């Protein structure tokens, strides 16, 4: 047996390597490049404190004299130089981008996770239990779908801001943001999962599982859930791009991340003020980072949808 298993594992690896999924990944340069960009950015965000040359949120390390240093040039007063320049307060743009990405990605990932858990749970329940549960869940979904997610998110943000006492508002902003974006985005998941559940529910193997007396939750989790994972994965990827854009938009509009914890959107909001006076780098680099991040995730999602659903090509 031991010999068998040692022989089996490399061949299984090879099998995985040659599987249609990996094959189509390896043969799509766009997918490979986007994947590595996303990976690089995630690592950069995760290890921002180690990579960033400065800590832009520690006032002690900031020198106002360093303000408005153009990228790659030495500052005329201090002689220090910065890869991507500095903003008005002398903060290193490269460092603020790393920390901004950290917040953007954290909010985006958490919001998608929230939307996914909520949507999949409600979708499964609606599809499997049916009856009144289904009617109520899907009606709420319909009403919410009438409104664009970004508007729903703004409303939730506004309401939550009204409820939280002023002294906690800045602290809570990030969590309110996650809540707002997450709650605005669950409908997609719920609809797809419900649809797939309705199909799976009537298949023989589920009927059989029910006949032998499996519990409802066991059937939902063990039998139905695995069958809806592919579309959920695709939606999650595309939702991540949307969530990151939504967060950036809210922060740009000034109803998102507070200036004390700037995300990419906040940085763009700050940078916009200097667009007319020629300090383009304060705006340009955060904007390009956001674009690259959202575009890579979208490209990855696009490829994923085609790879998991070959009918569409």
């Amino acid at each position: 047996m031991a010999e068998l298993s040692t022989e089996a594992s490399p061949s299984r690896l090879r099998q995985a390597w040659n599987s249609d999924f990996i094959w189509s990944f390896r043969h799509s340069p766009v997918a490979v490049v986007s994947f590595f960009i996303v990976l690089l950015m995630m690592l950069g965000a995760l290890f921002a404190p180690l990579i960033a040359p400065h800590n832009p949120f520690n006032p002690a390390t900031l020198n106002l004299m360093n303000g408005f240093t153009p990228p790659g040039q030495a500052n005329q007063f201090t002689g220090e130089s910065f890869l991507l320049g500095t903003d008005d307060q002398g903060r290193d743009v490269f460092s603020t981008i790393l920390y901004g990405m950290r917040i953007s990605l954290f909010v985006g990932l958490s919001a998608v996770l929230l939307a996914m858990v909520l949507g999949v749970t409600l979708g499964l329940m609606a599809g499997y239990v049916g009856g009144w549960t289904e009617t109520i869940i899907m009606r709420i979904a319909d009403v919410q779908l009438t409104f664009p997610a970004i508007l729903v998110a703004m409303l939730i943000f506004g309401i939550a801001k009204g409820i939280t006492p002023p002294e906690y508002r800045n602290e809570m902003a990030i969590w309110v943001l996650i809540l707002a974006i997450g709650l605005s985005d669950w409908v997609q998941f719920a609809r797809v999962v419900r649809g797939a559940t309705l199909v799976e529910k009537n298949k023989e193997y589920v009927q059989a599982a029910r006949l032998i007396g499996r519990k409802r939750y066991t059937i939902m989790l063990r039998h139905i859930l695995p069958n809806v994972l592919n579309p959920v994965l695709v939606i999650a990827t595309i939702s991540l791009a949307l969530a990151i854009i939504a967060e950036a938009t809210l922060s740009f509009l000034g109803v998102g991340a507070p200036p004390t914890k700037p995300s990419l959107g906040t940085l763009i909001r700050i940078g916009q003020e200097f667009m007319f006076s020629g300090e383009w780098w304060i705006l340009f680099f955060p904007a390009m980072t956001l674009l690259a991040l959202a575009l890579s995730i979208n490209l990855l999602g696009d490829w994923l949808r085609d790879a998991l659903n070959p009918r569409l090509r």
Partner: protein
Amino acid sequence: MLAYIIRRVGQSVLVLLVVGLVAFAMFRFVGDPIDAMLGQERTQADIERLRVVLGLDRPFVVQYWRFLEQAAQGNFGLSYRQGRPVSDILMERLPATLELAFVSGLMALIGGIVLGIFTAIRRRGISANVIMTASLIGVSLPTFLIGIMLIYLFSVELGWLPSFGRGEVTRVGGWTTGFLTESGLKALILPSITLGLYQMTLIMRLVRTEMLEVLRMDYIRFARARGVREKSINFRHALKNTLVPVITITGLQLGSIIAFAIITETVFQWPGVGLLFINAVQFVDIPVMAAYLMLISVMFVGINLIVDMLYFAIDPRLRADRTTGGH
């Protein structure tokens, strides 16, 4: 068909009641209206008097009903921030938003459908693939970035077009329009591109997907097998079938233009209801938020209703049997 219309109208009313409940709950439970309306120097008697005047001592359902009554008459009370009637402020701002939404909606619809058909028919062509890739960039570009880029290029670098405001407006009855002056039209260009571009990409991708789906259908194959011309297959057989699902989502998209105007209006400091709303969110001006929500809902529900009616014009299956609603 009449039964179908009545049911759709009933559903619309239900949606409005739910939204009304949300708006009312915001009024009632988010922040304290008494706090907001009375200054620091207040007595317990003032508070009690205001509670009675506002009807806050009545049961919840009565209050909700009163709120709906007032809302139906367009009365949403005073803005916490400006101290003026919310309905006045909204009416002042509405023409700016509607004109912007109209121009960009038209652009998105025409551009989206034409490009969608083109990319579906020339699926393997080079130009179609270039457009598709470009559209993915378009989807990944947040609206506000598009606006900033346009401002940078056309206002800062080239100096051709204004970067903010509506330009010179003309008053026609109770309506202010920017369509009649050169500066008003110039001021419309950048904001409508900003607002319309994203919707255009979405509509284009949607039309393309639906069209490709339809082109795979048996009746298209059968039409080919009968020797029907490509032109007729694409525009007579495929396009008509594509339009049925496209109309639903496009209707919703056009409705959401009014909501997305919030972002564009902020970037261009466009004096519409969107800018009003975002300021209201920042300052937790609940009456303005609630009124905006109700206004947008009425518009969305109206658009949805029109979209439903459009189905009848296109799909004979709906005209025929009344029992199966939806599509």
